[in-house]
């Protein structure tokens, strides 16, 4: 499988920062900025970890998460929800849909890295 992390995030600056942080730690980072076909990208080649935004163009992050959990090939793929929506309701929704972990923006780079190391199935 390798150490591949798929970042589904529409904000270019944020995904650029994540790429920098993870690459420096030796992760292979792939960025996908659109929600519409995000699920199929994951299915096509399941990564060690998915970092998933919620507010995405085309399709909500929660929606993508649910379809990932419903499909057999992606059911076990760890998903780190990373969102600027930090309310309790969002956190609950993420847990219900099967998010492996939930982090709010802005985040500390070290926390993000620790989470990726912790969650990624390698």
């Amino acid at each position: 499988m390798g150490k591949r992390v798929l970042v589904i995030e529409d904000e270019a600056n944020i995904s650029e920062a994540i790429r920098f942080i993870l690459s420096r730690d030796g992760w292979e980072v792939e960025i996908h900025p659109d929600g519409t076909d995000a699920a199929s990208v994951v299915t096509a080649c399941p990564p060690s970890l998915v970092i998933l935004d919620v507010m995405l163009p085309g399709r909500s992050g929660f929606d993508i998460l649910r379809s990932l959990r419903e499909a057999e090939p992606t059911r076990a793929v760890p998903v780190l929800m990373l969102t600027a929506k930090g309310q309790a309701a969002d956190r609950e929704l993420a847990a219900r849909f099967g998010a492996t972990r939930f982090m709010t923006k802005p985040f500390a780079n070290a926390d993000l890295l620790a989470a990726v190391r912790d969650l990624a199935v390698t």
Partner: protein
Amino acid sequence: MSVNLLVIACLAYVVFLFLVAFAVERQAERGRVRWLRSSLIYTLSLSVYCTAWTFYGAVGYAARSGLEFVTIYLGPTLVFVGWWLMLRKLVRIGKQQRVTSIADMISARYGKSNLIGVLVTLLCIVAATPYIALQLQSIALSFAAFTSELNGDGLSDRQDFFALWVAAGLALFTILFGTRNLDANEQHPGVVTAIAVEAVVKLLALIAVGVFVVWVVADGPGDILTRIDAAARPEWAIQPGRWIGLVFLAGVAIICLPRMFQVTVVENADERHLATASWAFPLYLFAISLFVLPIAVVGLELMPSGSNPDLFVLTLPLTLGQDGLAMLAFLGGFSAATSMVIVATIALATMVSNHLMVPLWLHFKKGPAGRRGDMRGLVLNSRRLAICLLLGLGYVYYAVTGGSAALAAIGLIAFVGVAQMLPALVGALFWRGANRIGAAIGLGAGFLIWLYALFLPSFGPGVFLSAQVMAEGPFGIGWLRPYALFGVTTLDPLLHALFWSLTLNTVAFVTGSLLGFPTPIERVQGAQFVNAFDIQAGARGWSQSAAEAEDLLAMAQRILGTAETQRFFQAHAAAQGKAGFLPDTTPQFLDAVERKLAGSVGAATAHAMIEQIVGRAIVSVEDLMAVASETAQIMEYSNQLEGKSAELERTARQLREANDMLTKLSVQKDAFLSQISHELRTPMTSIRAFSEILMDAEGMPPEDQVKYARIIHDETIRLTRLLDDLLDLSVLENGQVNLDIQEARLSDLIDRAILASNSVQPQRKFRIQRDSAAEQVKVETDTGRLSQVFINVLSNARKYCDADAPVMEISVARNEDMIEVDFADNGSGIPFEKQALIFEKFARLTDQMQAGGAGLGLAICREIMINLGGSIAYVPGQGGAVFRVSFPQVLARTEPDQGPVSERSAAE
């Protein structure tokens, strides 16, 4: 004391009464009647109940039967104390129906039937004539007693002569003040006030004699009580059955006596007076009866045996040499007698005229009455004639039978006679099922039994009924003996007659009512009477008809007089919105005319007269509809309830809407805050991440460091812009904008906006079509703000227009003082369901990547345009997205917090 002095005193007193009545009538004509129509005058006028019978006869009654005379006051006292039950309703209906007499009231209730009116009138005449005779007799007797020419009961020619003069004088007084004019309300303030004065005189006289007897002749109350005990006789013992009967009889009489009805109901000026009278009148009765027994007892002691106890009030002071007191007593008795005669005559004359004379005249004069001739003259003259006839009848009765019966007996016989009206009257007020058939049969039966069992026998055997009939019954039928009907022999004649006449009367009345079928008018009137307290509007007895208003006017003029009628017609025409004197003959108007006429000639006659003009049977669909007046009232009430319920529902809906709106606003506010939070966190995330990266930048190439620092810089600007937008929006929404109004050419503004918007996705090439000629217009507005709107619209097009070869067409049009600038692209436009959303805050339709803004742009545009006195709108159905920005060419310079605010609120 000389006869002349007595006659002079009498004349002086009468002249005084004339002056009082005359002065009051004058005041009344000038409209100054307020104090005259007070509850005091009303209560005093009720004392017309206390006639010469009370004044003289009560003492005689006490001398013969002890305390029993009190029953005559107890009955009225109970009725007045319980005024709420019956009197109040009588007075209310009397006013509603403009009743002129008791006959009028009963006939009005029973379908305005004149048959009933005639029956009641006849009954009252028969009952009242001996009563009037009694008053004349009492005056003659007192005159005789005074002049010491009397021994025993014999009457000389001189007294008859005096009685005749008195009758003539009373007729004159009654005609003068009782038939002065045909008053719409049939009220006689002059007469009533004179009666009130007489009430005071008779009360003072009786109390004066009483005080004299108790404190001068005897040694005070204690002594009097001892004397009463000593004088008690076996026949003074109280007989409970008789007491109950007499109390009941007197109570009925105070309601049914025509003269009492006249003063209680017809002359009543204000219903509230009745409330006062309910305690004041019993008080008067108490005062006037207080000294009756002492005078009787002392009279029995001091006067020679065989003296007429009926005259003790007069003879006692005379015998004791108190001439002044005797004169006062004489005037008191004179007052009592004359007041009764005057009021009774007025009441009876009204009845005779309204129910006998005028109907006869109408009957014999077929067809609509001619237009000429004043019928007021006819009515008034018929009343004058009736007054003379009644007093004449009374005098003849006195002359023929004078002195034959004790005073009290005649009074009680008359009471039983008028009591025959009770079932019909009570039925009228409380039983809607009562009808004219029942009333007629009941009245007839009661009348006949009264005549047969009490009135005719009272003349003594051999006058009307032979001694044989009295003793053995007609044709020897024992159970038909006048004093022992159906074999009942245990009651005395008075109670016997009262019992049988009222029982059979009531049975006949109820049976007739149950078997008979009420006419529509009866039903209408029944509902009006029984529900008198619930009724607001008048009856609707008349249906739309061909009645000519002009004929009505002509007829009414003859009853009411020209000026009064024209005023009345004009007022009604005006109320209908018509000029002139002729209103439409609506049912309401006909009803009003009928009521007006009824005030002068009685309900039955008024109805007949209108009928003549309308010229057809009055029972119609509308009448039948009116029958359901009670139902209609209930329906109206129900409608009101429904209306109220609808109103409540409306209020509830408004509240619900307000609540929904608040909920929505609250949700919007939460969403807004959540959006702001998100919009702030996003740039902050980049800033934090890159700043942390730069903090640990060992070995990082300098160009990367610069690159990341630039990201931080850009995101900070983005944050600032977001905050600026929020503040801007807040200021715009609160209308606290300081507009910087400048003059500019529209084309220049658009040029600038295109240039500025080019920085958005500069890689996209837009073809822009413009109408240069139309853009050459000078505008005077906040050009900076307007440009901001243009830039926003153009930038949006650059972001969202999905055409492969995007085209932006800018067109300018003028609509009066407004400039309309349309920005149309050739994309796929905005879906219908989202068009309403685009101007809301954070209503970004697509994604952030494309938009790049926080989603406040159009919301800000909308607020700016409102502040500029214009608007921005999405124009649907044009293919691509079309935004129309319209604004006044010249924006008036106003205080910053005025114009824009009001326009803003108007726009929302």
